[in-house]
């Protein structure tokens, strides 16, 4: 059954090529291939659940020479989340693009993005992480440029050049690791790396490269313009997944591979940057004039929360407390993935219906687009962290971990961030429920509204009530956590 790990990469890759050949049936091919990939990712999670993490050496080449794929609790859960988001966004995109030329260009790139995401999450060595990071960056930039206006192209060029810089810095770190240890295999490295200068310099370079990719304050400057000017399904994938897998690599390096090279001071530095990101991003989201720009700044803030967990995980003793902090981190990441993608898809519906996404002119939306407004409210619940969303539990454990680790000051940041989030969510809802002229017939666009609703329900209900299972799954298979 370890074949499933190949299928999640091969199916979208083949489908992407087929979409180039038969562009007339591209949406059909994409939907089928995403459902198959989703099924394969469920198989992977099931296998990790039953028998723990597993490897697959492509072409039976020995690790270190060939490409090794690896699935464990962390990567399989993120894989499942991204395939659910991608599948919903695929249904949405099949009705979103009306221009046949744009549609023909969209599908191959979109499926390439899926290939890169899945391959990145399942990579077992550092160099493959670099290659998949570049693949992801290139397909994300091309998809951003699909909007084909000046703002989008400028954002895409900035995104591309800053992304290239990030991955070159990452690659320089990879080169140093190979000098010191003669291998790039993550499992082999995690037993070898000690707190010696070479590894720490390499670790620092790789982290710096990844911080650009994951848009941690003050390296977030490229994100709002790129995420706000891309087409809606692309923005959803960029904000929910592309930024998050860079955070995934940071986590993988910090808690799994380089755990012995981590110093509390460096973790504290990242935590502080995360805290500034929470407050700065939320404040900018509150100031934003456009719906998608607001969502993009809110992503900067939500990424900040994930980095606040790092100093806590490093400080807490190994055992249930550390597991709880780690699971809460994962829960926050998953909730944000579902909620932000739902939000962007809904923002796309509003943009198509009203012809703009200026927040101050949203009046009447609640009556014209009731379902979409409901989805925005639901994902707002998850962004603020109200019960029963997954981020409520995540923030709850973030606060309790802060007290247990003796770092109470994070609690203040979380409180301010949550208040600001409440303000920016209710600001939108206030305008949307207000009176307005755009009151025509009540619209129900099933194909574009229901995918967003499903994602928002995942963020608020399913993750909130199903988090006990996630908890059990992670604590049972947290052998990679070894600080």
């Amino acid at each position, binding site marked *: 059954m370890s074949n499933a790990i190949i299928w999640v990469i091969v199916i979208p890759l083949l489908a992407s090529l087929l979409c180039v050949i038969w562009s007339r049936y591209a949406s059909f091919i994409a939907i089928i291939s995403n459902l198959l990939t989703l099924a394969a990712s469920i198989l992977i999670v099931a296998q990790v659940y039953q028998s723990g993490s597993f490897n697959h050496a492509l072409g039976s080449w020995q690790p270190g020479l060939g490409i090794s794929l690896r699935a464990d609790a962390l990567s399989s859960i993120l894989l499942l989340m991204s395939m659910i988001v991608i599948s919903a966004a695929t249904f949405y995109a099949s009705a979103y693009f009306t221009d046949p030329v744009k549609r023909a260009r969209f599908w191959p790139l979109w499926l390439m993005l899926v290939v890169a995401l899945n391959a990145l999450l399942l990579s077992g060595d550092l160099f493959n992480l670099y290659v998949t990071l570049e693949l992801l960056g*290139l397909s994300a930039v091309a998809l951003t440029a699909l909007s084909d206006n*000046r703002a989008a192209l400028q954002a895409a060029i900035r995104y591309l*050049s800053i992304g290239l810089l990030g991955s070159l810095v990452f690659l320089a770190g990879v080169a140093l690791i190979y000098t010191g240890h003669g291998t790039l295999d993550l499992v082999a490295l995690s037993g070898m790396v000690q707190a010696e200068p070479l590894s720490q310099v390499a670790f620092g370079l790789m982290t710096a490269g990844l911080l650009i990719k994951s848009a941690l304050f003050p390296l977030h400057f490229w994100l709002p313009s790129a995420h706000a000017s891309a087409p809606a399904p692309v923005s959803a994938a960029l904000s929910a997944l592309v930024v998050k897998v860079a955070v995934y690599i940071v986590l993988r390096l910090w808690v799994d591979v380089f755990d012995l090279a981590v110093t509390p001071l460096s973790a504290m530095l990242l935590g502080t940057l995360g805290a500034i990101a929470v407050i700065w991003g939320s404040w900018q989201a509150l100031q934003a004039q456009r719906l998608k720009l607001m969502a993009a700044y809110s992503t900067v803030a939500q990424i900040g929360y994930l980095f606040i967990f790092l100093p806590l995980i490093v400080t807490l003793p190994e055992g249930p407390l550390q597991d709880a902090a780690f699971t809460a981190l994962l829960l926050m990441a998953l909730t944000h993935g579902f909620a932000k993608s739902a939000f962007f898809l809904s923002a796309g519906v509003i943009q198509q219906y009203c012809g703009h996404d200026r927040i101050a002119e949203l009046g009447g939306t609640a009556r014209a687009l009731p379902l979409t407004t409901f989805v925005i409210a639901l994902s707002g619940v998850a962004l603020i962290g109200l019960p029963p969303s997954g981020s409520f539990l995540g923030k709850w454990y973030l606060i309790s971990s802060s007290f247990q680790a003796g770092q109470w000051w994070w609690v203040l940041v979380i409180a301010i961030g949550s208040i600001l989030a409440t303000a920016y969510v209710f600001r939108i809802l206030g305008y949307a429920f207000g009176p307005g002229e755009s009151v025509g017939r009540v619209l129900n666009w099933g194909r574009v509204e229901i995918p967003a609703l499903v994602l928002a329900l995942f963020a608020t209900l399913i993750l909130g009530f199903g988090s006990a299972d996630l908890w059990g799954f992670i604590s049972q298979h947290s052998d990679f956590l070894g600080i």
Partner: protein
Amino acid sequence: MISEQLLYSLAGVGLFGIGLRATLLHHMLLLRLLALNVCGAGVFLIFIAIAYGGVEMIADPVPHALVLTGIVVAVSATAMALALGRRLQALNDE
């Protein structure tokens, strides 16, 4: 006496630094792309210096394979940035 391997590694680090500085300083797309490529060349030089094991020894093939992959990625990314730049230019001219 400084070894050849160290000399090439340091040259790679130097190139990387020059490229990094220029990437951060310049705002023109073309200059920035050139700087990024210099930066990349520095990283590739470090990889090649790592592979060298002495006059008598066969060079380690793994870093060579990595550099080849890296060059392919760098070329395609540069091409894409140029294409985007041209498209932006065309939109500006309209």
